[in-house]
């Protein structure tokens, strides 16, 4: 069995709007191995959430998905019907959402919602499913799990609900978990706990994890590999070490300047920011999407699209016309 859990080639998401077609996700390639955590980072609106929904085939009906290759555990699930996809969802791949407060159905007990997931994918009796659900709740660190099964979501705190969501997603022991900003809505102290928990469980179950976030602090703690998205495209991709120690793309470099690094950032130096705004993705767009905000932009940047390239074959790929050397020097030619 292959170690590659997820393989995606050329994913595109278009959303027709009154003013034109919004190219929200444009030619994204992704792969995740067993036991690996891929973090997709980017600011809001860069297409990272739509990417995750597209993988689950759960895009809003208005959005259209185009994709060349979509393999889960080495098996193509691209041509799957809605029925076949629903056999995969929650079974081989699960998803954790941003808002634990609203992601559980208020009308049913935790137990009910967990058991229905199990019984949908596994041929289990109600009692057996209930027992499994209880054990999974214990595994995610919930005390008095048996009692929790009979409770309703509104009786639980946000942190607890997110633990329940995680437990529910793990029930069928999926090969891949996609977590879309799982800690954004939580208190800072709880955030760390949940992240730690996710990391532990991931290695315990040996799953692939795609974590979507805009928080570079989170990325630093948990990522094996990082994909940086900007305006619907991946602009840089590499191991966490590569991205943090040697960011190449001007956007990634800009992002890194925005966060303080303990021991590196000197007291009193102002944190960086990236001037300008994200271009409108409605209609056709040619050239580098970051060009308008880039100090290194040349005329050629705007004339044709820039491919994602890895000139040295070192896994770290970036989407810029400039050479690694030039970018490493911060653009002083």
């Amino acid at each position, binding site marked *: 069995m292959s170690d590659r859990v997820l393989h995606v080639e050329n994913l595109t998401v278009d959303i027709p709007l*009154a*003013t034109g077609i919004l190219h929200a996700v444009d030619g994204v390639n992704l792969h995740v191995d067993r036991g690996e955590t891929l973090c997709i980072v980017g600011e809001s609106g860069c297409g990272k959430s739509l990417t995750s929904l597209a993988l689950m085939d759960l895009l809003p009906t208005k959005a259209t998905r185009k994709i060349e290759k979509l393999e889960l555990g080495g098996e193509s699930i691209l041509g799957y019907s809605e029925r076949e996809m629903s056999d995969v969802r929650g079974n081989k791949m699960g998803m954790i959402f941003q808002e634990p407060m609203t992601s559980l159905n208020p009308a049913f007990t935790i137990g009910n919602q967990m058991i229905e997931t199990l019984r949908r994918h596994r041929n289990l009796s109600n009692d057996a499913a209930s027992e499994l659900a209880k054990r999974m709740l214990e595994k995610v660190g919930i005390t008095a799990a048996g009692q929790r099964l009979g409770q309703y979501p509104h009786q639980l705190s946000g942190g607890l609900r997110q633990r329940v969501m995680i437990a529910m997603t793990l029930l069928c022991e999926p090969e891949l978990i996609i977590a879309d900003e799982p800690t954004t809505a939580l208190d800072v102290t709880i955030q760390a706990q949940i992240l730690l928990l996710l990391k532990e469980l991931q290695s315990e179950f040996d799953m692939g994890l795609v974590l979507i976030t805009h928080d570079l602090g989170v990325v630093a703690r948990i990522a094996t590999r990082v994909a940086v998205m900007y305006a619907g495209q991946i602009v840089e991709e590499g191991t966490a070490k590569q991205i943090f120690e040697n960011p190449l793309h001007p956007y990634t470099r800009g992002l890194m300047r925005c966060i303080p690094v303990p021991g590196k950032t000197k007291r009193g130096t102002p944190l960086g920011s990236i001037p*300008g*705004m*994200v*271009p*409108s993705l*409605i209609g056709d767009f040619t050239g580098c999407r970051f060009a*308008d905000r880039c100090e290194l932009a040349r005329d050629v940047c705007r004339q044709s699209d820039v491919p994602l390239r890895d000139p040295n074959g070192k896994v770290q790929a970036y989407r810029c016309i400039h050479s690694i050397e030039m970018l490493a020097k911060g653009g002083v030619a």
Partner: protein
Amino acid sequence: MSEINGKTLESQTKSSVFRRRVFGHQGVMIGAAIVLAAVLIALSAPLIAPHDPYYQDLLNRLVPPVWDSRGSWEHILGTDHLGRDYLSRLIYGARISLLIGVGAALISGLIGTVLGVAAGYFGGRVDMVVTFMITVRLSMPVVLVALAVVAIVGGSLQVVIMVLGFLLWDRFAVVMRSSTLQIRSMDYVAAAQAVGCSTTRILTTEIMPNVVNNLIVIATLEIAHAIILEAALSFLGLGVQPPLPSWGLMVSEGKDMMLFEPWLITIPGVALFLLVLAINLLGDGARDITAPENRN
């Protein structure tokens, strides 16, 4: 480049989306056209009515409309059981319907807005009392109470307007209360309070302009509601009294002969249906167009 793009795009879409919503909204356009026509007809009734709506020509009773082989151009929509010209009565009837609709909506709108805004703005006990009043009002059967009061006081145009006005304020109060509550929680109201604006000033300059859209929508729908209720009361003989040409009364008078001369009830009924339909379309459309969630 991109900034300019973004901004112009945004301002363009705001006004154009609004315009498209108004003009692309078939319902609103149809509704507006019919309502406008009805208002014009009502206002110019003495000019366009071919006959006196009260003149009884007992020799020419129950003349069918012109499309019937027995009909004539003299009475395009025929005559009623007393030989009165049906078209003229229909035209004058538009006046009664609109007068009652607008009159009742004005009274109930005033009551409901005062109660609703007070409840939403002051909250606490005021809110409790108003909510209680709404509950009590909703518990009383409108048609029954209206019929009983009209029966005791005696039916007339003024009485019907008053009775409906004092009965139909509930929806105004409910909507105005929730709209005010919503606006009241906005930061700019808190800001106005913080700089020491008086309650009157906040109510007139901050609250009212922001709830007026909803007020117009409800007023439109309540006009239709009042018109349909007046017709029902008059139909039961406890609304506008003969010889006034209320459409409900016309249906009632035609009902005994409806099996032989069905047009007697079809004509005023269709007029009533169309007018109420048009006002509702206008109100629904106004809600769709002004709904904040559509103003992205």
